[in-house]
């Protein structure tokens, strides 16, 4: 990859989570129908857990220098809805890349070359992988929130997919919390020197192959050979049990016996506590700490690796314990590698296997990840090229150095085959293997194995100083002698006060960061006032939400406590939610449409920013009275048009305190009378919809009264009549009577009976009045085309209006049947009160 592309690649990758891998990018892409020199798009193929998506990124610079220069324009999942093709352009060095996703089509201009070939190949491959595995695209959801508004809509179709589970909130916020924690950990590590100091600890490491013997001798001469009690012990044994049971079931009574023997043998001048005991068959490792340090040991973990029979069994291998002492990670590995003089390569392999397979299931996971590693055990490397006699002669002359040149471990380490970056102290002791039991005499048996330094202790890490390295001839129960090494090791110790200061400082910085990155917007007005809101005459105001913060702001108008909608039914907010990029604005339209009888409108809207603050926007205004939203019983008590009615008169009419002045409302009479005179022969009287202004004029004519004739066409007047009957406070057949009316609809007499018994005079008269008018219309059906059935079905839904407006009408047929009775039967005067 070109270096410039590699740089951009890294920047693009930074735009995504670590697990979302940028597989391929294509730079300098332009949109086909966009402005000419607009080649600032970067196509990016991203994989997350075998699901792929194509991101169209827009770079704010020609060459992005930070991921913040990039914004996501589109996100296109590579699922079965995705397809793409290229279209060459004659005589040009570019092709058109056409991407289709459901009904969306994207066209990009890309230069022909290696980059485009590679990119296309990656997409083809990704598409194949996607189709062959059950993919989940939920990881994309968080990116839709970051896209700008226009593109969001075109991508919304993705949500239709069944497998698209939307858990946007959870994901986004969960992410934030993880980031915060790992960020804190990372920053603390960076600033560790500020709050730690090096302190020297003595670490006593011992190893002994006990040849299957029980502990019959005291270990004091070995484990307590130092004057001052060590701070920490790591004692490893090999071959504590050679029985088949131990080998097969990995269970042995010797574990406890040897452990007791260790605890009895360690330094008597201090109290110790076992931190961990790790064992595999005959290999056992105990890490023991001086009581005073016990509380500073943490994250203890252990593991074992068998490299014996079949490469797996525990007759050979390693056992390890890892821990953190104060702020330093330590790892102790006790191993028993393959035997026999010639098997040094097998031993090298065992070492590699132990490293590869030892896994502590916690961070740091591998042996090499620890700041200090102590490697001990029966490494089993022998002395080569010398006869038994030569070795013994050299030993008698105490020519240890000469002899060590023939030590396989030294040879293999020099060649880099084993324990490469480990250090071993100078060996001044004689080989620790192989002795006749209970003696200091090297093997006198028939096999007459030459002596060897099989038992070794090495280390790796900074600040480790070896104080001694020796064997312990006093212990004779095994064919090996124990070896010990004492270390003075630098451990980084936390200064609590300084730590607290750094920790607090970091938290404060993160708070600051977090607060700075909260979404911030301003609205240009917190008070929206509407003047004189009139019946069905919508008014709108715009408020501007401006993102003044540094991150995209997702806004939404939210419900108040115990309310099921985010605004009252007379208000509409468009859009009620959205996302605004930093520095950008969004116009939100508040539209009032009054359809009920209110003196004032008043509401507080809560504009919520996801992950941030709330803002309140008060919407208020005065409303103008209208006859359309009154009840029949109010209307029949008002003598003059409603706008001329005095406040007291109106209120007493509203409270049914004033006398009834008309048998049907004036306004109703005016409309019906007009239609009676001008509209009986009008075809499709109720079907055509009038101009809004026309309806407003008729409304005002009714509400204000006028000397002028009723304005508007018969159709407009008819529509006004329908409106009036649809919006009056209580339908002509009140809600609670509708069910019985519908039930009685099959029988006119029953219907008639209901009308007489249940309906009050005002409603009954109004109902009959409307029906008589409709009968008049039917008489002229030749001209106007209205049959009783048509009118019944039209007026059934109006006269028996549903309680919930704008919903699907309920029981329309029953209502029509009810009304039909009164259109085809004689409405004798007995129905009409005096």
């Amino acid at each position, binding site marked *: 990859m070109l270096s410039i592309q590699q740089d951009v690649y890294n920047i693009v990758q930074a735009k995504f989570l670590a697990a979302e891998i940028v597989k391929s990018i294509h730079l300098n892409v332009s949109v086909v129908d966009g402005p000419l020199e607009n080649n600032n798009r970067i196509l990016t193929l991203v994989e997350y857990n075998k699901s792929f998506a194509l991101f169209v990124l827009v770079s704010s610079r020609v060459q992005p220098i930070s991921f913040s220069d990039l914004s996501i324009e589109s996100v296109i999942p590579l699922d079965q809805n995705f397809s793409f093709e290229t279209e060459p352009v004659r005589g040009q060095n570019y092709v058109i890349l056409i991407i289709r996703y459901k009904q969306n089509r994207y066209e990009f201009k890309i230069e022909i070359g290696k980059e485009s070939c590679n990119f296309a190949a990656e997409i083809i491959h990704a598409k194949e992988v996607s189709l062959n595995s059950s993919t989940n695209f939920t990881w994309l959801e968080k990116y839709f929130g970051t896209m700008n508004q226009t593109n969001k809509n075109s991508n919304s179709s993705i949500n239709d997919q069944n497998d698209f589970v939307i858990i946007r909130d*959870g994901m986004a*916020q*969960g992410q*934030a*919390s*993880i980031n*915060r*924690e790992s960020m804190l950990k990372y920053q603390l590590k960076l600033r560790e020197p500020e709050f730690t100091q090096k302190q020297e600890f003595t670490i006593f490491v011992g190893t002994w192959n006990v040849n299957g013997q029980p502990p019959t001798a005291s270990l004091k001469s070995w484990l307590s050979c130092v004057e001052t009690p060590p701070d920490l012990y790591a004692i490893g044994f090999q071959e504590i049990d050679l029985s088949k049971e131990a080998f097969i079931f990995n269970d042995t009574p010797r574990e406890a016996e040897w452990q007791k023997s260790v605890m009895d043998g360690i330094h008597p001048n201090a109290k110790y506590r076992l*931190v*961990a005991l790790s064992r595999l068959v005959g290999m056992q490792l105990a890490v023991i700490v001086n009581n005073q340090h*016990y*509380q*500073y*040991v*943490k*994250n*203890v*973990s252990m593991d074992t690796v068998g490299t014996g029979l079949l490469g797996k069994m525990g007759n050979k291998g390693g056992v390890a314990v890892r*821990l*953190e002492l*104060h*702020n330093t990670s330590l790892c102790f590995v006790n191993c028993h590698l393959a035997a026999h003089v010639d098997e040094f390569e097998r031993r090298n392999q065992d070492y590699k296997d132990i490293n590869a397979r030892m896994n502590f299931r*916690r961070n740091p996971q591998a042996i090499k990840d620890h700041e200090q590693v102590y490697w001990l055990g029966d490494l089993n490397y022998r002395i080569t090229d010398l006869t038994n006699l030569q070795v013994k002669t050299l030993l008698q002359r105490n020519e240890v150095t000469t002899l060590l040149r023939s030590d396989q471990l030294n040879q293999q380490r020099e060649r880099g085959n084993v324990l490469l970056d480990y250090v071993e102290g100078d060996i001044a002791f004689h080989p620790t293997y192989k002795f006749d039991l209970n003696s200091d005499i090297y093997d006198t048996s028939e096999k007459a194995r030459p002596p060897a330094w099989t038992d070794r202790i090495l280390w790796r890490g900074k600040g480790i100083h070896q104080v001694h390295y020796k064997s312990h001839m006093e212990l004779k129960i095994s064919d090996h002698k124990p070896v010990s090494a004492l270390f003075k090791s630098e451990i980084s110790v*936390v200064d*609590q006060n300084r*730590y*607290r200061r750094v*920790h*607090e400082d970091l*938290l*404060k910085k*993160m*708070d*600051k960061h*977090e*607060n700075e990155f*909260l979404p911030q917007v301003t609205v240009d007005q*917190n008070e929206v006032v509407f003047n004189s809101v009139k019946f069905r005459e919508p008014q709108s105001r715009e408020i501007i939400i401006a993102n003044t913060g540094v991150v995209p702001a997702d806004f939404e108008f*939210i*419900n*108040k*406590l115990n309310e099921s909608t985010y605004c009252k039914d007379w208000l509409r907010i468009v859009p009620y939610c959205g996302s605004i990029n930093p520095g950008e604005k969004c116009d939100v339209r508040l539209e009032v449409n009054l359809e009920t009888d209110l003196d004032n409108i008043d509401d*507080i809207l*809560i*504009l*919520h920013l*996801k*992950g*941030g*603050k*709330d*803002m*309140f926007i*008060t919407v208020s205004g005065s409303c103008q009275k209208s006859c359309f939203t009154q009840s029949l019983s109010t209307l029949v008590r008002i003598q003059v048009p409603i706008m001329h009615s005095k406040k007291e008169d109106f209120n007493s009419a509203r409270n049914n305190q004033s006398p009834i002045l008309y048998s049907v409302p004036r306004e109703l009479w005016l409309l019906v009378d007009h239609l009676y005179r001008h509209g009986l022969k009008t075809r499709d009287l109720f079907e055509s919809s009038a101009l809004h202004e026309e309806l407003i004029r008729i409304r005002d004519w009714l509400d204000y009264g006028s000397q002028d004739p009723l304005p508007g066409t018969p159709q407009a007047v008819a529509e006004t009549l329908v409106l009036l009957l649809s919006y009056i406070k209580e339908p002509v057949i009140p809600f609670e009577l509708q069910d019985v009316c519908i039930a009685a609809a099959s029988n006119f007499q029953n219907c008639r009976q209901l009308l007489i018994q249940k309906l009050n005079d005002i409603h009954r008269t109004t109902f009959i009045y409307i029906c008589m008018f409709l009968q008049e219309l039917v008489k002229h059906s030749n001209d106007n085309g209205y049959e009783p059935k048509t009118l019944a079905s039209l007026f059934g839904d109006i006269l028996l209006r549903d309680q919930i407006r704008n919903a699907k009408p309920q029981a329309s047929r029953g209502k029509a049947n009810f009304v039909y009775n009164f259109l085809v039967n004689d409405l004798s005067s007995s129905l009409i009160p005096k």
Partner: protein
Amino acid sequence: MANRTGTAQRPNGQTQGKICQFKLVLLGESAVGKSSLVLRFVKGQFHEYQESTIGAAFLTQTICLDDTTVKFEIWDTAGQERYHSLAPMYYRGAQAAIVVYDITNQDTFGRAKTWVKELQRQASPTIVIALAGNKQDLANKRMVEYEEAQTYADENGLLFMETSAKTAMNVNDIFLAIAKKLPKNEQNTGQAGNAQGRRLTEGDTGPRAAGNCCK
């Protein structure tokens, strides 16, 4: 995430115990200095002409105690009476509240008492309430006596301090006192962080468990 410690782990101080997250709400008459107290506490700033809050501002701030770290999600509410009905959205689920009054204005103290009553009646029963007599720098115009407020606070089991967002007097202290008083037991262990910026909506009935702790 709640507990990364193994059986053999003991705290050695390095990880400084747990982080507890609490929702704190500021209530009180308008212009008593709620936003100023938050601004002083979170950013160490003071603006003589702080804009009136129309809504509920949100900020976070962390306080380190000896063994725990307390992260406050602070909701600074609008004080104007017209927004009173919206206040439950913010104090519902809050583990702590600071009810603020202005020591130079007796009415605001009366209003503070009403807020305390409302919280006692409607907020979480375990809510820690602190009473802050703000504008202590204007003590020469004092209309509410220290002893009167102290007595009231004692009777109602409230933390009480006179504060000054202007001089910073007792500002950190009152948040610190709340942090200390909040329960930080293991029961509170949950997921911190994902409560960020969150208000209780209909799904979250009643107050949340008293705290939100996590290591």
